[in-house]
């Protein structure tokens, strides 16, 4: 196992490339590539990688990058790409198409604020814009989590019980451009972990079909129901994949979420990506002072693991959500999801905090102020804007 000091983008590019190369004994791999800050280094890495059976096509837009991935996957190849922010927005039509075609494409989203006004810093609003797309979504808090989750994503996405694309998100700059020591996997281990990619409905001449044509309401309903059923099978498939990952790589990546010190907690704070790492230190400090407080790092966002959240929240009296995203006219998107988890629970006070939008630095002080507000509350209010960049 090579332990290397690398950036988040390097780690992600490496994991995608190893997964692509692992399909050399099947139909190979092909990616569509288009640059956008802060993910550009990923597609540069892919373009420089010498695949023994694969190609990376440098296209003219994100829409076409996903178009190439769709074509490659329909032809039975393993396929992947990366994007950010307005690139994801420009790609949206084909992102939906990839899911509705049931193609197991893996995409890295390096979270960046949607513009205008233009801002290159982290905000989860870009990938969460895709929350209603037929894609799995995972949010990563570290470089190692990123590498492991990318490999798991291929495994789960390509599982015949799932056969849906997967998005893996990391924080722009905070993760993409900083370095951490990572166990970068060897090719042989990736080969052992990932089966040959098999897209059962791929285009073939011995059995010609028309993929993605017209359907009537009845067939369309079934198509959507099948996608929901596939989503429902993800937790089981993910659990199996993690067990096999552990066998091959000797470490156990996080699953749907990571609950810390929630067992006896009165107060539980939810956050994703690197905010969750800062939060972890804050929780430890407050625990040391005798506070009954815990946290949940939200990792899998689609399918949303409601029962895991309900179990982790347990009998807590207060739940605070840190949302680095904003759905105008409603509030934070993680908060909305957790509200559906807690429906009917009048014993829990659920409060949303919109924090760190546009890349504002969410420091331990900011998080402490949020928790101080939460523990004093007798009732919840509309989402609270916690401005940090002033």
């Amino acid at each position, binding site marked *: 196992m090579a332990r290397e000091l690398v950036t988040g983008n390097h780690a992600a590019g490496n994991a995608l490339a190893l997964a692509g190369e692992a399909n050399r004994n099947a139909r190979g791999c092909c990616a569509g590539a288009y640059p956008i800050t802060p993910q550009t280094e990923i597609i540069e890495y892919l373009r420089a990688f010498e695949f023994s059976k694969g190609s990376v096509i440098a296209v003219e837009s994100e829409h076409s990058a996903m*178009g*190439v991935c769709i*074509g490659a996957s329909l032809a039975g190849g393993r396929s992947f790409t990366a994007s950010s922010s307005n690139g994801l927005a420009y790609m949206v039509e*084909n992102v939906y198409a990839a899911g509705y075609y049931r193609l197991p494409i893996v995409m890295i989203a390096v979270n960046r604020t949607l513009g205008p006004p233009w801002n290159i810093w982290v905000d989860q609003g870009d990938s969460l814009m895709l929350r209603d797309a037929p894609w799995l979504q995972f949010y990563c808090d570290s470089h190692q989590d990123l590498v492991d989750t990318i490999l798991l994503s291929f495994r789960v996405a390509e599982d015949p019980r799932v056969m849906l694309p997967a998005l893996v998100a990391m924080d722009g700059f905070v993760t993409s451009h900083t370095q951490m020591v990572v166990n970068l996997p060897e090719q042989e281990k990736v080969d052992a972990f990932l089966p040959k990619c098999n897209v059962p409905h791929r285009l073939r001449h011995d059995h010609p079909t028309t993929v993605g*044509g*017209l359907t009537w309401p009845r067939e369309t309903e079934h198509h959507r129901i099948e996608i929901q059923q596939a989503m429902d099978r993800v937790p089981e498939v993910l659990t199996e994949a993690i067990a096999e990952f552990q066998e091959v790589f000797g470490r156990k990546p996080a699953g749907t979420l990571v609950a810390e010190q929630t067992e006896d907690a009165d107060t539980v704070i939810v956050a994703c990506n690197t905010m969750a790492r800062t939060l972890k230190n804050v929780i430890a400090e407050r625990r040391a002072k005798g506070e009954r407080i815990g946290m949940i790092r939200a990792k899998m966002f689609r399918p949303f693991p409601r029962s895991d959240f309900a179990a982790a929240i347990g009998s807590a009296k207060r739940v605070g959500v840190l949302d680095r995203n904003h759905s105008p006219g409603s509030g934070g998107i993680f908060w909305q999801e957790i509200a559906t988890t807690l429906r009917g629970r009048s014993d829990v006070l659920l409060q949303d905090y919109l924090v760190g939008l546009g890349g504002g630095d969410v420091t331990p002080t900011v998080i402490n102020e949020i928790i101080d507000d939460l523990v004093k509350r007798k009732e919840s209010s509309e989402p609270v804007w916690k401005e940090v960049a002033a």
Partner: protein
Amino acid sequence: MTIIAESKPKEYCDYLLRPGNTNCAGCGMSIGLQWLDQALAGEKPTLVIPACCGIVTAGAFPTSGYGVPTAAATFASSPALASGISAIAAINKEKNPIICWAGDGGTYDIGIATLSAAAERNEDIIYICYDNEIYGNTGGQRSSATPEGAVTSTTKSGKGERKKDIMAIMAGHRIPYAATLSVAHRDDFLRKIKLARATKGFRFLLILSPCPTGWKSEPDESTDLISTAVRSGLFPVYEVFDGKRYRINMKPDETPVEDYVKKQKRYRSVAADPKGLKDYIDQQWRYLIGMAKAFPATKDDGAFLATDVKAE
């Protein structure tokens, strides 16, 4: 999976365009797709079709009007999908041609960036545009392929702008082969498909595709209309090799463009005096003749097919 249309191993199912497809009577696509099938002589292509009448042709799941593997792409994406399919086919050493079959909306308008990029990369794709000069699928709105004077549902008194010269745009990409194809001239049509098939890299073929529904013409006059469009000079039939060597295949014979216009109610606002179209024809031919003189095709251009056709 519900999005796959099953095919049954019956003889008629083996045609590229199967009986029972949903094309209107007199549609240029019906001729074009059958001649494409005949020119490929049993070789089965993979089709990539964006949003356009061409995907409606297939009918609804679980049936399909296409007897070859077909991907329905999003509107602007057929060359991008075809690039991905072509890349995987190439690394698996699969030889079947990959063909985009797209309307003018997907080619001249929404898909032009994708088309341009795939041409610039010289992807190993045959791109065929069946140009019916309107958004036919949505009920006949203007596109940048709609000719000057034509009435559409969004140009009620006739379009004020000229048709975009897509061939000049594609020639500007210096692709190995670009040609216009007439559904009234079978030998030339088949020869060009065969030549495109025998050429590597990005190939662009443009078909003027009659649309009785949108053109407000009689279905049984479709091929006559195209013949008139060729003879009047409105639709020049020519080839461009490597984007820089021109060969004109058919010269106009002074058939008046009025003969073309008067049979289509879409031209009702200019039928009495189609001066704009006449100017368009003049300028187009001065340009084409100039190019063919200055940059003529050599006898090697398309030579493979010259012998091939003779041998038949």
